[in-house]
């Protein structure tokens, strides 16, 4: 007759998508120039950067590249001198583009396959925040067929349809110890899809400056039936029914961009991009479990993201006919307000710098390499929901390489 024990535990997965996941690695030439490309025209990566510019490409393109991403976060819990660091794991954002149209025709078709959002964060199972997150592996692959039309010699437009395939694998400890004192574990694993579109316009002005304006729509990625795996002490397993599934929808935000290209001499290209990312559409993150119990309730975590912007600039110097040198950098404001920072991607305002090198290996073949260093400002936070309190600092190192064949 003792009071029934309702093991009401908050096991809400505090999954955050944040700009930490906006990986901005969609073309090696563009990365080298500070990840600009809305207002310039370099290669098939325009499918992503500005579908409106694709029709202006003088040639057809097939190209692919990869950017191994070293994401290194450090967390110092408040009031301690402990340094908790993420494990050395390498995420592999990639890009593939094909652009084709009849020679000197007014239209071009394009296809892009790229990874604009993703994350691989592994804090391990002994750190201070293990009940918030142990590891997260998140992938979003966008597949985008595109049509671009040249309306005049000085103006072209284009648009694409986006099909997104996303997957998530998240683990965290559950604060229920078994007889040997080991905590339980939750793993949420699933994949889903979403749809969106993008459109752009590209101008060549009389002064020689090129301008691009694009809109990439929000893509709501829905995981309809992911696996919710809970390992807890046997006597509590009935509170965490197995097998179980979850559904969740995560908005990948709309991005509005304007970009400019300047050509002070035949050897130089200067580019400037401004992006506005509508993260403010991301208000709550809800997880709906198929089987609920008193201990396992659906969760609705406030996110209250704010609109973010980024400023990017870059330059290319054509040292010889075959060799291009590139550099650039930028600044991005965080979407995550104070109190909402989570260890999935401990977001903060960030600066980055890039270097790049392009080499024409053969008549139709370019090889491009790039390197990006990104620094997230140190940020001391207490998360409202988890009360995890401490300082995050993150550095990201991204080398990249691509091959482009054009004819």
């Amino acid at each position: 007759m003792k009071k029934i024990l309702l093991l009401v535990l908050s096991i809400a997965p505090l999954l955050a998508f944040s700009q930490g996941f906006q990986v901005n690695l969609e073309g090696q030439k563009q990365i080298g120039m500070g990840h600009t490309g809305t207002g310039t025209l370099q290669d098939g990566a325009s499918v992503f950067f500005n579908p409106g510019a694709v029709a202006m490409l003088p040639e057809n393109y097939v190209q692919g590249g990869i950017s191994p991403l070293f994401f290194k976060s450090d967390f110092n819990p408040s009031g301690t001198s402990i340094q908790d660091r993420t494990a050395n794991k390498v995420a592999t954002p990639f890009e593939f583009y094909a652009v084709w149209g009849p020679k000197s025709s007014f239209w071009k078709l394009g296809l892009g396959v790229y990874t604009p959002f993703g994350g691989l964060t592994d804090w391990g199972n002994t750190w201070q925040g293990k009940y918030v997150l142990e590891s997260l592996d998140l992938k979003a692959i966008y597949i985008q067929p595109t049509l671009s039309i040249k309306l005049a010699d000085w103006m072209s437009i284009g648009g694409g349809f986006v099909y997104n395939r996303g997957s998530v694998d998240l683990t965290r400890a559950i604060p229920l110890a078994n007889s040997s004192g080991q905590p339980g574990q939750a793993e949420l694993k699933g994949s889903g899809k979403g749809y969106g579109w993008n459109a752009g316009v590209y101008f060549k002005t009389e002064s020689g400056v090129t301008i691009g304006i694009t809109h990439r729509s929000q893509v709501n990625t829905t995981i309809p039936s992911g696996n919710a795996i809970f390992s807890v002490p046997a006597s509590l397993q009935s509170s965490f029914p197995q097998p179980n599934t979850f559904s969740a929808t995560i908005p990948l935000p709309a991005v509005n961009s304007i970009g400019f290209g300047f050509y002070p001499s035949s050897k130089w290209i200067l580019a400037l991009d401004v992006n506005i990312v509508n993260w403010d559409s991301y208000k709550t993150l809800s997880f709906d479990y198929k089987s609920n119990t008193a201990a396992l309730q659906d969760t609705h975590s406030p996110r209250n993201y704010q609109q973010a912007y980024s400023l990017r600039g870059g330059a290319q110097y054509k040292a010889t006919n075959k060799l291009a040198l590139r550099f650039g950098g930028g600044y991005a404001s965080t979407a995550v307000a104070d109190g909402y920072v989570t260890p999935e991607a401990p977001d903060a305002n960030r600066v980055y710098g890039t270097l790049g090198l392009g080499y024409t290996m053969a008549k139709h073949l370019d090889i491009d390499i790039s390197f990006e260093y990104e620094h997230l400002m140190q940020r001391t936070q207490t998360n409202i929901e988890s009360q995890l309190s401490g300082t995050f600092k993150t550095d990201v190192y991204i080398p990249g390489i691509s091959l482009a064949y054009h004819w």
Partner: protein
Amino acid sequence: MKTFKQHIYIIAGLLLLGACKPEIHTPKPSAGSVDFSRYISLGNSLTAGYADGGLYLAGQQVSYPSIIGKQMQSVGGGAFTQPLFSTAQANGSGYLSLTGFNADGTPITTAVTTNLAIRGILPVPGFGNVTLYTKYTGDINNYGVPGIKLIHITYAPYGNLNGYYERLLPGNSPTNSTTYLDFVMAKPFTFFSNWLGNNDALSYATSGGAGDVLTDKGTFAYLYNVLITTLTAKGQKGVVATVPDVTSIPYFNTITVSAILAGVQKANPAAKALYINALVSGTTYAPRQATTKDLIVLTFPTSMIGQPVSTPYGTLPYGLTPYTPIDNQYVLDENETALTEDYVTSYNTTIKSVAASKGLAVFDAYTFLQNVKQNGLVVDGVSVNSNYISGGLFSLDGVHLTPRGYAIVANQFIKAINDKYNSSIPQVNISDYNGVKFP
């Protein structure tokens, strides 16, 4: 060969990236204005690391003083030694373990009775049986003695009556005559923590107001002054803690009058009320209907309810008539609760004023635990509250804490010390400590 060399550079470059790591610069921990070289802890069962109804090695190893002692080592603290049970006798006094749940969700606990450190039971004339434990010889920093009250600290025969204290002394009961205060003071120290005083109220409360008495307020104030004056005689610094509100612990909040009554009414809808033997005033008790303000102890065997009891008025069901009230020992009734709270408030006024007069740090356990009871607490993604078992803070006896609870308390002590003495003893990682263990 040339391409091989290029590959080497690329591989070396990638390895280099792997080796880079961000670093957050933190100020070096500082002792502030305190010498932490020998820290000692005074207190009762909570200080000793008692949990799940017993004192055993695993509980001792996560006692809050041992956690504090370990954290102090980065600011000049010395070794912190506890009177641990040996691994062969790791289960010490024995304790409760959770072995399952009944179909209705109520927990099943089983006593652990192997590998105990009990060396005998000694009948002490005029007192009763005293359980004696395997002696501990060696250095002691943690002087926590389960069961001790403030009123005992100057009582010379106490070393014969409390087996946990007797265990620390060289002599055997009944030949001991060293007071607790003298024992603690025998070796110099530079810093102390003191959490004595709980049992002066708690022993009365947990016995339902029937098996013990509250320590007189004046006596408490006198002894607390003696204690702190002695401890600080050579300018030692320290931290003291207040006495928690006894009603904030699950021992009094798990089995409720309304839950019992609801159970009775399921079988017998005619039952209208429970009856208890309640304090009227002074020492006068009389039967009356129980209300939600009367607290039932966790150890009450609820199966007793409704059992036939023969009375001068015939055979009547236990607990359901004024002639067969629930025994006093199972109930801390409304008046007893008020009385206890009045004493606790007085004790805490004493503790805080004495601490202030000596410039000591204070961990206000009363306020902290009351806050947890009312609002719960979230630490590093772990939600804790004052509920029995599920709350994660209190162990299976409903009075003492889990490792997680002791770690949280240790951080509160550390915070109080740091605030007072401008030190920066690092906080401990709560995530490393578990709540109740489930089978």
